[in-house]
């Protein structure tokens, strides 16, 4: 059964905003209501068309009134984000993610009209480490190895609250989507900024993480499909195939610079500030751990049960990002061609 009145949290963010825009274009949906603490950017507002925006904090009881008065039947919880807005913002951030989810779920529980919840989670809940299996399937649970605070821990807590909600309201269809890292020409994440560092990109010495990426368009299509159809369950959402970190840096036309794990964060920060970057990269221990071991999830259930096959593989999504962002390679392909021709000419002389 198609959704009629959809509430999307976190519409000032990339996923929430673009999802609201997509849903607004879908005429089978009566009303699209976007909620966030800050107003979306003008470009995003323009995209969102007929979608309504309510400036509200999901930690506020106001959200409950919005849900009941607008007769919301589908809630898309897209607000949990990875990046604190600045140093020291971490406790506030956790409160937004976790306490916000609790309040939102409490509001949903009181409204008898709500019959579907779509939760944006992350593959980070599986952790990243040397003792982990190479490929995670949905039933694998994070061992106690998750860092005690951070994005992964927030999402693990959010998922557990969502499961609790599911037990109290078995009539509500809950779709939990564990996204791998998003990439694409328009999306802006820590990872996209990392790969666009000028010239050399620092990576962890002696390590080469396996990266699985998801094109932002695929992520939006999956969220849209979850709103459109009733597909309860937990699903890994990631593109097919992987790239090694060094390989990805090479494909972005950059040169990998291996440095000890401890100084990856500072080096990344330094290279960004040298460029006079407006927003400093927040490169915390979680990101460093991710770049040390990487993470790959199995998307078989997404294809067979959810019925969606990502249109971009990891490699295609990454290449689309590189071309879309217009990243200029540090070593130009022409120069490579030249060297190659030179060597081959010398080889011909040998023959």
């Amino acid at each position: 059964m198609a959704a009629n009145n959809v509430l999307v949290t976190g519409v000032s963010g990339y996923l929430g905003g673009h999802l609201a825009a997509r849903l607004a274009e879908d005429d089978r949906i009566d009303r699209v209501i976007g909620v966030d603490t800050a107003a979306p950017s003008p470009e995003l507002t323009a995209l969102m068309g007929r979608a309504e925006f309510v400036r509200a904090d999901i930690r506020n009881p106001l959200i409950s009134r919005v849900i009941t008065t607008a007769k919301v039947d589908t809630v898309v919880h897209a607000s949990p984000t990875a990046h604190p807005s600045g140093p020291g913002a971490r406790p506030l951030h956790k409160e937004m993610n976790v306490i916000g989810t609790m309040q939102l779920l409490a509001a949903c529980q009181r409204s008898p009209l709500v019959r579907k919840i779509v939760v944006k989670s992350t593959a980070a809940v599986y952790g990243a480490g040397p003792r982990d299996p190479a490929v995670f399937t949905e039933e694998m649970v994070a061992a106690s190895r998750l860092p005690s605070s951070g994005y992964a821990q927030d999402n693990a807590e959010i998922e557990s609250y969502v499961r609790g909600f599911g037990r109290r309201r078995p009539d509500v269809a809950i779709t939990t989507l564990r996204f791998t890292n998003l990439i694409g020409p328009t999306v802006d994440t820590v990872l996209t900024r990392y790969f666009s560092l000028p010239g050399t990109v620092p990576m962890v010495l002696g390590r080469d993480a396996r990266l699985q990426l998801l094109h932002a368009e695929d992520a939006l299509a999956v969220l849209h499909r979850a709103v459109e159809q009733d597909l309860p369950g937990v699903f890994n959402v990631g593109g097919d195939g992987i790239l090694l970190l060094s390989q990805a840096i090479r494909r972005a036309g950059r040169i990998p610079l291996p440095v000890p794990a401890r100084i990856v964060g500072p080096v990344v920060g330094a290279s960004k500030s040298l460029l006079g970057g407006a927003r400093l990269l927040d490169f915390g221990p979680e990101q460093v751990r991710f770049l040390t071991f990487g993470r790959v999830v199995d998307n078989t259930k997404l294809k067979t049960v959810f019925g969606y096959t990502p249109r971009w593989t990891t490699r295609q999504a990454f290449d689309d990002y590189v071309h879309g962002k217009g990243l200029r390679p540090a070593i130009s392909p022409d120069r490579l061609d030249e060297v190659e021709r030179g060597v081959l000419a010398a080889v011909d002389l040998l023959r």
Partner: protein
Amino acid sequence: MATARVIPLHGNIPVNDAEPAMARQTARRGRTEPVEPAPEVTATEPDQPAPPRELADRLADFVAFTRRRLTGEYEVDEYGFDAELADNMLLPPLRQLFQKWFRVEVIGAHNLPESSGALLVANHSGTFPIDAMMTAVAVRDHHPQGRFLRMLGADLVFRTPVVGSLARKSGQTLACNADAERLLRDGNLVGVWPEGFKGIGKPFRDRYKLQRFGRGGFVSAALRTGTPIVPCAIVGAEEIYPKIADLKPLARLFGFPYFPVTPLFPHLGPLGLVPLPSKWFIEFGEPIRTDEFEPGAAEDPMLMFNLTDQVRETIQQTLYRLLSQRANVFLG
């Protein structure tokens, strides 16, 4: 295995001094299956065309290879296996060691399945896991289709910088049931050394005495996927670094499972890292089928014990047989 006994390496087998080593080797070749030296083998590989290639061609290939590496134009599978890197950078030096230093003789390569999944189970020895690397070369070079062996390694391997990422690129992954079953289900040839550190780090006096086979997790992986188990016996690896003592405090300090003392290490420094040039034999035994059991057989502990024991016994018997045929550690 209370009766397990090491067959003495020297002395009991009468060696005819008049018979030259080469003649004995040819005799052995005739008895077992023919084992070809390097050039012919590489020639039969599908991805390596004409056998004696010109230097110019090699150079051109190398330029193209370098370019692909510099631009990231290569494929890596979900475990991080980089076939191109393995063939061009990782296997060639090991192949030299395989052919020139250890002069490995491969027996029973026909027991490896042509293209379907199988679990290769082998004995572990030699202080440093060179035996696993040599088995990988043996499978790649002596299997008619030149298959890659996907090995399961301890988490210590993946915790260690450089080693861990090289291990993944060479086709290894963590020894856990999830990865093993996934690889087998996808029809890979998977290698496992169930003795683990107990096998590889055992003292020299216990050579060729199989240690306990972990918890037998490998058998359940094979049973659940219905893939055959190929027992594999490796002779020669025990003698490369004879471990005569273990410096436990140093091991604890570095977080290693052991810190070996060999006749040459650590007092000769880097020179002590050169493995002794023992003569090796790698024998692949007849596959043990696991697809004839009922579904749910992997939940039956008694069956698991029996199968584990059968595999272990087969490898131990093959080791004894190979050892009794071997006249000299270094000459074979």
